[in-house]
């Protein structure tokens, strides 16, 4: 065999070997990147779960607590009242709205905490993954806003219902008093008159009241 042919074969084998080593090296490097991506994915899932379980769920739970607290507080206020004047209605309304605003502020703080955790997380990952998560966040924010609107709507509806019920209750109460007067007749009127007039009327006062009433009737044009 020609010595030159042998050199050529050796060169080809060396080149093939180098290619093989390069291929193996690149393959190993690729495996490492895959492993790194898998780790990233695992981390992503872990943080996602953390966001879901530690941040977003508590926010949702808090929303439910707000509704309960609002309902309880409204019930407490309503139950503590026997009747309402216009100014007392305003007081009740302001009290309730203040309480509602305070609770919603807490809700917004919790929602803000969620955003901070999210921002911290996305700053450490690749732009393509971040883009996908941004879309997810938009959905989360949208859901949160819907949830908040529902909270406000539920609380306002609850308040309106309680308030309406209370108006009816007051009207029924007053009607009940008048009905009771009709039922009990003279006795209760006497009692009320003593409270209203501070005394019972003497015969002379009764007679004067009759004449005074006749004069009032005349002024009203009753006899014309």
């Amino acid at each position, binding site marked *: 065999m020609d010595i030159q042919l042998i050199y050529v074969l050796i060169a080809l084998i060396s080149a093939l070997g180098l290619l093989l080593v390069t291929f193996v090296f690149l393959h190993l490097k690729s495996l490492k990147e895959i492993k790194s991506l898998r780790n990233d994915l695992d981390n992503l899932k872990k943080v996602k779960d953390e966001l879901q379980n530690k941040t977003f769920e508590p926010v949702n739970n808090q929303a439910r607590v707000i509704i309960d607290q609002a309902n309880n507080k409204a019930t407490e206020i309503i139950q503590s009242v026997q009747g309402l*004047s216009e100014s007392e209605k305003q007081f009740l309304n302001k009290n309730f709205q203040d309480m509602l605003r305070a609770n919603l502020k807490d809700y917004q703080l919790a929602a803000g905490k969620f955003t901070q955790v999210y921002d911290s997380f996305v700053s450490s990952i690749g732009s393509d993954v971040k883009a996908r998560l941004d879309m997810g966040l938009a959905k989360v924010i949208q859901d949160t806003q819907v949830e908040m609107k529902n909270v406000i709507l539920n609380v306002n509806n609850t308040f309106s219902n309680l308030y309406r019920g209370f108006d009816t209750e007051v009207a029924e109460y007053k009607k009940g008093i008048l009905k009771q007067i009709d039922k009990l007749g003279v006795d209760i009127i006497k009692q009320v008159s003593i409270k209203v007039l501070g005394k019972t009327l003497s015969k002379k006062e009764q007679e004067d009241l009759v004449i005074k009433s006749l004069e009032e009737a005349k002024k009203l044009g009753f006899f014309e």
Partner: protein
Amino acid sequence: MQSQLVSKLRTKDDLDILKGELDMIENAIYHTDIKYEDVLRSDIRSWVSEIIIRESEGQDLGSYVKKLRDDIVGVPILSASIYFEPSLSFTETISAWLKKNVSQNIVIEVLQNSSVLGGIQLSYKGKYLDLTLRKKIAKELESITLVRN
């Protein structure tokens, strides 16, 4: 000319009694077995018979009674419910006030009703007016403002 009897009526009772007396007189006039002079002397209140005799002098008694009956049909009656049983003097006070301020011929029917508490409940010529203390108190209760606990 209207009889003096009409202006002397104070209450619905007075009116009813006078109607009864006129019935007796008319009965005596149209039944020959009863002498109306006897009725006027024995069955009719003296002051009433005096006025009837005086006013009917020189005219037919039957026509006089008929006109008198027509007059009292038109007498306005005021029904009034008050808290207490009125004394005679107070009834006269009311009547005097009505004759002075409303009509010389008006008569009053006083009904005692303790539920009115005070003031007066009036019914007159188909109209009704409640000026009682009961009504005023009920109105106060209606607009009552209840207090918070």
